[in-house]
């Protein structure tokens, strides 16, 4: 732990960084007005930068951007695994990064010292503090549920009025192509991740010759913590204990911190720049194994329109005709998909990363890879999509019934997607509003009707989220059929994987994404939260036990969907 800012190191670092960035990326785009607001905010109050986390590049990038704009380099609270990267680690430290262990375990002293350290940096206000709400890099490119520990720490000086206010600045970083795309896909499939090391990064040297497209860094409007808090909390939770004595945050504070975390992540999502390739990925995944190029272009245009209606912040190359735009996206991602004889296909070639690459594994690899781009659309689409799913499942137009199903799925998917806690009805209304806006439904006080042309949208949305719905169904099936006794997460992951492999081999499902450990873990967490699985602490971690009764009760809701399996992907 610790950092020391040395100007020399910073300059050298900046020089190296600009070299790296220039050779890897076409361009780094920063929203100027956001940058100006940030500069203003830094003059006023301590600032906390909250970037999205998709790549190791993230913090290098923010330091680089800060340097370029003459801002004090942010002080970074990053995962300890950087320390493995000797040279880079040292450079990072010299240029302002400091590190924390991923988990503190029971080490209270470490946590206390660390917390004090972060706070004193914040209170001094010389430089912004930066950390990732998501805690770790998202391997799926979907925003991860927020972690609260660090947020708690940085909010504390405000709660205790050691500072007048704190600005929270959501930063959305989106890559046209993520450096670690393949690594992530492997990791999700259970191939252990290589320990971060300088040589590892250097081995990536060959990467330096590749083109990773552009990066968009969007600095959101600084959010005043004081404004968020106004009138929300009991005024005097800290008056009776000296401020330096750490206190366990009250429930009220925990709730507030959690709300702030979700709010900031939703802002990240809102400001995230989307690109044509994400649209293409979404379409491609619904049209496997191949799709006619012209049709792809047509559908991409259609989806572009829908995305914009849903409020997606799309960076579309206006100077290019649609077909050129699609072509150039395909070119950038030629390692994932290829254009062969007028057909666009998902690649399927051996990567040689691991020795045994079974066909299913290989297929899954590319689907997850492609999925990681589609995933970046999902949080924009999820509210209307869950309404669409509910409409499809219930076959009903009674609003109440549709809402019940919506709520059910929203609840189930609360680990998978980012929902502000406790506002199911509002989310439903927003979903309905967006579907109405794109003409897919007619929304009356009691009922919801799918319009004639709306069925295309409804079908598309259903297909878009099908991997999740189906994946969760398979996982539930595994749990209700196969386990009777306490099991570990490892056991669970292994079990789901082998069941899924079987199903995939026999062709009784096409849901490759259920092989993703991310989905498996999310589903398990959801089932624990909903009481269908009990979690017990043991000396070395946790064990789980299925609560058959409540799992079966809920299964109805899940199962109602399985027979509806339409063989063909909906035509647009």
């Amino acid at each position, binding site marked *: 732990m610790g950092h020391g800012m040395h100007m020399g190191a910073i300059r050298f670092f900046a020089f190296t960084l600009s070299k790296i960035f220039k050779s890897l990326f076409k361009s780094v785009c920063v929203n100027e007005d956001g940058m100006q607001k940030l500069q203003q905010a830094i003059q006023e109050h301590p600032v906390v930068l909250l970037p999205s986390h998709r790549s190791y590049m993230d913090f290098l990038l923010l330091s680089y951007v800060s340097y370029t704009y003459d801002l004090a380099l942010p002080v970074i609270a990053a995962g300890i695994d950087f320390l493995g990267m000797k040279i880079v680690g040292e450079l990072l430290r010299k240029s302002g990064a400091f590190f924390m262990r991923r988990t503190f375990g029971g080490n209270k002293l470490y946590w206390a010292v660390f917390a004090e350290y972060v706070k004193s940096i914040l209170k001094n206000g010389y430089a912004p503090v930066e950390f990732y709400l998501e805690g770790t890099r998202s391997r799926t490119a979907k925003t991860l549920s927020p972690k609260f520990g660090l947020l708690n720490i940085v909010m504390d000086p405000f709660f205790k*009025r*050691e*500072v*007048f206010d704190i600005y929270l600045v959501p930063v959305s970083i989106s890559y046209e192509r993520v450096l670690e795309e393949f690594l992530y896909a492997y990791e999700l499939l259970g191939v252990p991740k290589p320990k971060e090391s300088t040589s590892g990064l250097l081995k990536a040297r060959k990467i330096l010759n590749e083109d990773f497209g552009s990066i968009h860094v969007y600095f959101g409007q600084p959010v005043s913590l004081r404004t968020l808090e106004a009138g929300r909390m009991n*005024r*005097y939770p*800290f*008056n009776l204990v*000296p*401020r330096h004595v750490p206190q366990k945050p009250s429930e009220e504070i925990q709730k507030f911190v959690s709300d702030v975390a979700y709010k900031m992540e939703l802002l990240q999502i809102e400001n995230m720049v989307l690109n044509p390739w994400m649209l293409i990925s979404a379409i491609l995944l619904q049209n496997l194994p191949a799709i006619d190029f012209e049709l792809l272009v047509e559908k991409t245009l259609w989806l572009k329109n829908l995305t914009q209606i849903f409020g997606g912040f799309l960076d579309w190359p206006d100077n290019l005709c649609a077909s050129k735009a699609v072509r150039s996206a395909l070119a950038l991602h030629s390692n994932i998909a290829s254009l062969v004889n007028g057909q666009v296909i998902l690649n399927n070639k051996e990567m040689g990363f691991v020795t045994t690459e079974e066909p299913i594994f290989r297929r899954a690899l590319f689907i997850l890879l492609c999925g990681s781009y589609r995933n970046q659309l999902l949080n924009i689409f999820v509210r209307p999509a869950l309404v669409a799913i509910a409409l499809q499942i219930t076959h009903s137009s009674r609003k109440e019934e549709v809402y019940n199903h919506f709520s059910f799925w929203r609840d189930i998917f609360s680990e998978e997607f980012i929902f502000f806690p406790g506002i199911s009805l509002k989310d439903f209304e927003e979903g309905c509003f967006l579907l109405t806006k794109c003409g897919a439904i007619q929304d009356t006080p009691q009922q919801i009707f799918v319009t004639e042309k709306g069925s295309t949208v409804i079908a598309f949305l259903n297909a878009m989220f099908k991997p999740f719905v189906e994946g969760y169904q398979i996982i539930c099936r595994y749990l209700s059929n196969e386990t009777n006794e306490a099991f570990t997460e490892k056991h669970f992951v292994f079990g789901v994987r082998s069941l899924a492999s079987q199903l995939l081999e026999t062709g009784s499902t096409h849901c490759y994404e259920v092989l993703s450990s991310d989905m498996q873990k999310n589903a398990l967490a959801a089932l624990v939260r909903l009481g269908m699985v009990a979690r017990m602490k043991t000396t070395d971690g946790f064990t789980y036990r299925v609560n058959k009764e409540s799992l079966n009760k809920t299964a109805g809701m899940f199962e109602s969907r399985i027979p509806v399996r339409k063989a063909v992907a909906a035509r647009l």
Partner: protein
Amino acid sequence: MAAAAAPGGGGSDGFQTAAHRRLRILSGHLRSASETYLSASQCRGRTVATPEGSQSGTFPKRRQEILKWNGWGYNDSKFIFNKKGQGEFTGKRYRIGGLIFPLLKDWVEKNLGGSLEHKTTPKASLNISDVPPSIASEEFLQDLQNAKISYTQEAESRLFRAHGHCLHEIFLLREGMFKRVPDVVVWPECHDDVVKIVEIACKHNICIIPYGGGTSVTSALECPADEKRTIVSLDTSQMNRIHWIDEKNLTAHVDAGIVGQDLERQLGESGYCTGHEPDSIEFSTLGGWVATRASGMKKNIYGNIEDLVVHIKMVTPRGVIQKSCQGPRMSTGPDIHHFILGSEGILGVITEVTIKIRPVPEYQKYGSVVFPNFEKGVACLREVAKQRCAPASIRLMDNAQFQFGYALKPQVASIFTSLLDGLKKFYITKFKGFDPNVLCVATLVFEGSREKVLQHEKQVYDIAAKFGGLAAGEDNGQRGYMLTFIIAYLRDFGMDYYLIGESFETSVPWDRTVDLCKNVKERIARECKEKGVQFPPFATCRVTQMYDSGACVYFYLGFNYRGISDPVRVYEEIETAAREEILANGGSLSHHHGVGKLRKQWLKECVSDVGFGMLKSIKQFVDPNNIFGSGNLL
């Protein structure tokens, strides 16, 4: 403000006072036999029902004869801009009378956007018919007459007692009218009179609001607008005798209506003082101090009012409450004095108090220290508190207040002084590198024997030096204290030019002091902006008192209300926000001003439901029919 700067007596010495003086001289001869002074202990002879003419203390029954009816202090004393557009203070009561303040105008223009051209036009004089008519039954008045209680229903006198000195109250006097004012003013002359009045009030179910000096800044004296009963303002000003002085135990027994300056002057004649010097000492009364838990500037030596009182007598609807002896400390359950201290007139009338006295100190010396910044200054005060070597008074002003004080520098007579000033300024800013826009000043008062004072002074300055403090002379110190007793005159002055202002205070643990000051000022600035105040406000603070574990912080807030249609409401919203900020920063609801009606809304959360219930049950027992119905606190 020091007693030395207080004005001389306002009224002519009537027969009564002369008699007292004679008595005192007489008893002086007897001193060797008994060191207790004698005094008339019964009520004086009385003139029935006519307030005119009868007077005994500094202030006549018709206070408006010498005091402003719509502002602070004496009729003849006020700030004006003279023909040359320079600030000037009129009258001869104060040392600054007739002096010119050449820097004031500039300061007002620069800091508040005030201007000589933009003047307000308050009511020139009171329109009697605006005052709500007096409602009182004949039977009640008859009972008062029978009991030989002096009273009046005159509109001017009633209005005079309808308020304290909150901004909104003064603003209403200038530009509006209270919905409700007292219906009758009564002047008891002794404890027994009060007993009679309270009996009569209980009999007729009448609401009594005790009135001391009228310097309340918490809306405590305001009549509840919805009070349907007759409201009687019980003016204690005629209960103003010192009954006896006990030199063996160093105590004095005094009527609660005595005004601070009279008390100190009269004790001074025998070589004593109480040392209790709130900034309102010219007007506030002993009973008022007890009723509000007042704090005096020199509490470091003499203590706050609760440390000073030895015995209290109070008349309640249930009867008289007092203790059976004057032991210096007792373990007899919760101290009943503490039900009375801070009771803000809702339990009864404090009539007599035995108070500690001290010999008048032989030597007094002002001083000042400049610190490079406020944080350093607070750190120094904290250290002084830790070493328990606080001077009689020590106050740390922030930069804005320092500059304000500077703007109140009177024109100097000799070139030499101004040259010296220049040199001093040069030394501090150029040579020592203090930033004139950051530095801050502590003002000090030392008291004691000459030798001890000089020793003490050195000790404190040595500590200050450790925190980068530089001694900055006696003059600066003295001017600092002057500021605090002319501030209320300045407020009236500002109101003539669209500038409104007020002060409020809190107490806070040492470690939160700096943050609280910063945050409250920032909050004020923010609120002003949001509420459409056109010019940046004057928000400044000083640490005025220190304790072992914390400090008292005092804020001034002023702003230019041009362009705002409802300035008082805007001001109150801002003060409310500032108070919320104080509470959230670990500050108290009040250090010495009290709660009154102004801060009622927070009392419960500040003392917990149970604590609040305790207070309520005391009120319920002592005054079940809410005779003392001013509606303060609860």
